[in-house]
């Protein structure tokens, strides 16, 4: 069973059935990792381009490993070393890559909607690897899978997202996916970092982390983007640490089997303490491993020959 989709632009577009197909497809890819030969010939002869307009090591590397384990040829383009610095537009860059027969273009861009623009202009399969404050669908899927693997079901599961919800595309993708799967999603953070009216997406809002963490089965800690501090969205890093850092002391108030997640890269000592990040409840490293398997599943499940009408 595969997805009748050519693109993965966001989890807002996927319905529950499609999310379940992804969840059910990951394990066979993950089981490849323990073989002596970790590759399958599924995408032999296909070309995958990663086009990153923002810095990234883990997402780009994860996609690269995923594509290589499926035997595709991978080309990495980072903006500092491309014609973009000479002024080439996004669409022209995309068309050039297409003329070189790219079958999949994996794009990260600081502007929300950039992957949609490529999808509307090109025939290649477009995968969003993070766009602005909008979505980061493969991170959302790997978070979803990591929770599913550990907790087996989303029914009555309380998932808490902590930190900068406003600027976090990871939070948006998590909210879309988790609420559709039946989980109860809460967010906690400083009022200035919680988007107004986020309740309309079906999430509960907390400003007090000590209160919010009591009922959580899963806590997903978002990275504090230190550059935001210049915008005076919270008074000081010190105050953020006091009120919202996930610490051993705060975990003592949580359920014993709480899962601790973080999409990375972590600012240890800011949004999460080292002893929390390295505790037995932490699945942060498993998220990275699952990320490769989930991205392999996505590359496999998209249907490059589908029409253009299913954005």
């Amino acid at each position, binding site marked *: 069973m595969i997805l009748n989709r050519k693109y993965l632009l966001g989890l807002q577009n996927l319905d529950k059935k499609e999310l379940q197909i992804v969840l059910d497809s990951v394990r066979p890819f993950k089981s490849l990792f323990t073989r002596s030969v970790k590759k399958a010939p599924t995408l032999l002869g296909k070309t995958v381009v990663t086009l990153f307009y923002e810095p990234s090591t883990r997402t780009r590397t994860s996609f690269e490993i995923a594509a290589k384990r499926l035997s595709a040829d991978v080309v990495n383009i980072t903006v500092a070393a491309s014609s973009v610095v000479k002024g080439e537009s996004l669409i022209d860059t995309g068309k050039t890559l297409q003329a070189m027969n790219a079958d999949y273009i994996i794009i990260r861009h600081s502007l929300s909607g950039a992957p949609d623009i490529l999808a509307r202009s090109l025939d290649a399969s477009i995968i969003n690897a993070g766009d602005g404050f909008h979505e980061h669908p493969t991170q959302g899927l790997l978070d979803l899978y990591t929770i599913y693997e550990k907790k087996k079901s989303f029914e009555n599961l309380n998932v808490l997202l902590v930190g900068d919800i406003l600027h976090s595309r990871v939070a948006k993708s998590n909210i879309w996916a988790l609420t559709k799967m039946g989980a109860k999603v809460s967010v906690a953070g400083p009022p200035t970092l919680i988007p107004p009216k986020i309740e309309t997406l079906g999430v509960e809002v907390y400003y007090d982390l000590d209160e919010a963490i009591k009922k959580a089965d899963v806590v997903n800690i978002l990275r504090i983007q230190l550059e935001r501090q210049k915008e005076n969205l919270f008074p000081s890093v010190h105050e953020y640490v006091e009120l919202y850092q996930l610490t051993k002391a705060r975990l003592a108030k949580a359920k014993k089997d709480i899962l601790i997640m973080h999409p990375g890269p972590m600012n240890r000592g800011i949004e999460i303490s080292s002893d929390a990040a390295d505790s037995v409840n932490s699945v942060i490293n498993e998220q990275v491993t699952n990320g490769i398997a989930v991205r392999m599943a996505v590359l496999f499940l998209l*249907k490059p*020959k589908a029409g253009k009408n299913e954005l």
Partner: protein
Amino acid sequence: MDIILDSAGFNQAVEKICSEILRDNPSLDNLAVVGMHTKGVFLSKRITEALSKRLKKPSLQFPFGTIDITLYRDDIDDLGLDIPLIKDTEIPFDLNKKNILLVDDVLFTGRTVRAALDILISFGRPKTIKLAVLIDRGNREFPIEANYVGFKYPSAKKIKVECKEIEKVDRVIVL
């Protein structure tokens, strides 16, 4: 509906496969069994049960694995949405130096077996790989033959192997 093998015929075919295996390797030395999803998995259980009965060792256990060939198919671009959900490929033993008995329900073009061989060697270097199939339909597209065949039915007609575990009856029918 044409029945190619009824329940008794199905059993006879399994017994024929067992006789041929034992003629080849009487002590079943270093044998490990790998079933190809979905029906090959059930069939390999039938074969190992029959082998242990013959050797009068009811507790006889062979290392056992399963294979799903989806990721190794050569026609994946042509299948469209008809790709089934991928099942687990599990080889929970060291297959180096083992004599592998690969089991599938039907041998036809040979392409599925080609994919299964690629998967097996991605786990290591078995001493031998031999193929057992319940039905040989002929019409090969690749130079691949089975070592042990339960029943020959050379035909281009689509057939279906039914197993107790799913269809409540062991038989083979023409679709």
